């Protein structure tokens, strides 16, 4: 019975913890994991608040958010999923905005292998070309559009391998198991230099723009750190990083 006296103290302690928490849980699509890590570091330096970042495929993150994952902000690889969350009341209405437009690149770690016009798709003697699954990933859908425009979607069907998301697609190519693959430009942009290898930056006209939306989730509503981070994504520091990783910025 004596233990009961502790209950209010513990409860109060927990409350204090919640009140002073300055961490924000961010769910981020695979393609934006690298720039987000950089932005999170700057954010911590400038505001003293910590962003805890979890990356994965957009669809999986959606399922987790729908089932009570503790995320407060969602940076999607598309526009549809955050819209859906907004309509379902899991995202805060009116908080959605585009934070970046993704660029697609056909990349190989071999220098001089991929020509700057992407003709290798038509004439190359590769065994495997990796793309993200078009059903699951916006970058995969874009890759399919490009291959269709080149008239190569059907002819190379048997040589395609599918990553679950853009991160895995990159891994298939970087390990050499697929000679080349459509990845996000952000993945082959290291800090200030291109990664080793060769690539074709696919002209924006060949695929539907990959508009990537951010949204404040219901769990982040009224949380200072979460709202701060969303604002921070539009700051000069953040947009500089976003640009450096090869994304186009919203007009």
């Amino acid at each position, binding site marked *: 019975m004596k233990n009961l006296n502790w209950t209010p103290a513990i409860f109060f302690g927990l409350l204090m913890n919640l009140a002073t928490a300055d961490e924000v849980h961010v769910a981020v699509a695979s393609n934006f994991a690298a720039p987000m890590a950089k932005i999170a570091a700057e954010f911590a330096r400038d505001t003293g608040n910590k962003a805890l970042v979890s990356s994965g495929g957009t669809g999986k993150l959606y399922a987790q958010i729908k089932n009570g994952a503790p995320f407060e902000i969602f940076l999607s690889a598309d526009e549809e999923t955050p819209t859906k969350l907004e309509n379902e009341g899991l995202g805060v209405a009116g908080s959605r905005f585009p934070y970046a437009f993704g660029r697609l690149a056909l990349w190989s770690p071999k220098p001089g292998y991929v020509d700057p016009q992407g003709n290798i798709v038509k004439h190359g003697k590769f*065994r495997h070309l990796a793309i993200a*699954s078009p059903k699951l990933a916006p970058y995969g859908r874009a890759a399919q559009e490009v291959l269709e425009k080149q008239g190569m979607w059907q002819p190379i069907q048997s040589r395609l391998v*599918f990553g679950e998301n853009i991160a895995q697609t990159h891994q298939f190519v970087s*390990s050499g198991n697929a000679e080349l693959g459509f990845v996000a430009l952000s993945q082959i942009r290291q800090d200030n230099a291109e990664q080793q290898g060769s690539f074709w930056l696919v002209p924006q006209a060949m695929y539907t723009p990959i508009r990537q939306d951010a949204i404040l989730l219901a769990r982040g509503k009224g949380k200072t750190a979460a709202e701060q981070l969303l604002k921070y994504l539009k700051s000069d520091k953040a947009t500089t990083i976003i640009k450096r990783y090869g994304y186009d910025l919203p007009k």
Partner: protein
Amino acid sequence: MNAFDFAPVWLTLRLATTTTLLLLLMGTPLAWWLARTSSWLKIPVGAIVAMPLVLPPTVLGFYLLMTLGPQGPVGQLTQILGLGTLPFTFAGLVVGSVLYSLPFVVQPIQNAFEALGSRPLEVASTLRASPWDRFFSVAFPLARPGFLTATILGFAHTVGEFGVVLMIGGNIPGATRVLSVAIYDHVEAMEYAQAHWLAGGMLLFSFLVLLALYGFGQRTQRVGP
């Protein structure tokens, strides 16, 4: 979505059957050696066999992707032999699954052989039974429960495989898109009805397997060797 897609189900069963048969063929001599040797190698080899029990499947898959890839040592060998490279093929999944389910087959058989002791085999050899005869008429029948456990566990564990396949499969319909990957895909694509069908089937299957395993264990205990 269109009609229910059974391809991942058949592929998974084919993979589990192939893997289990290969493991019984390769695992039995290994288990025999482990059970009967007094060599100093027993402990390190036993530890290597048990590794997949503690390694995350993604670690195994990642190393396989590197090793079997065109720059990896095994990949170089398969290319010289004219086999190409193994990732993104059914054969590659078999290699991965054999490693991944190895302890589940070797350990039950090894335990059964160890429980046998050397006595029955010594008696058999005084009766002039040849080594093969000793194995097939004495050791194997006595160790049968161990073999059955190994078969069921090896099969079921391969059916439940995900991380390794995800890393080296490439999600190719009819070649590497197994059940667990198909479920993952349905969830990623927000097709929860299909995910439920497949996942529910898996749940039922696992329960029945374990039911059979425990039911069998009960019976053998009652009857005794």
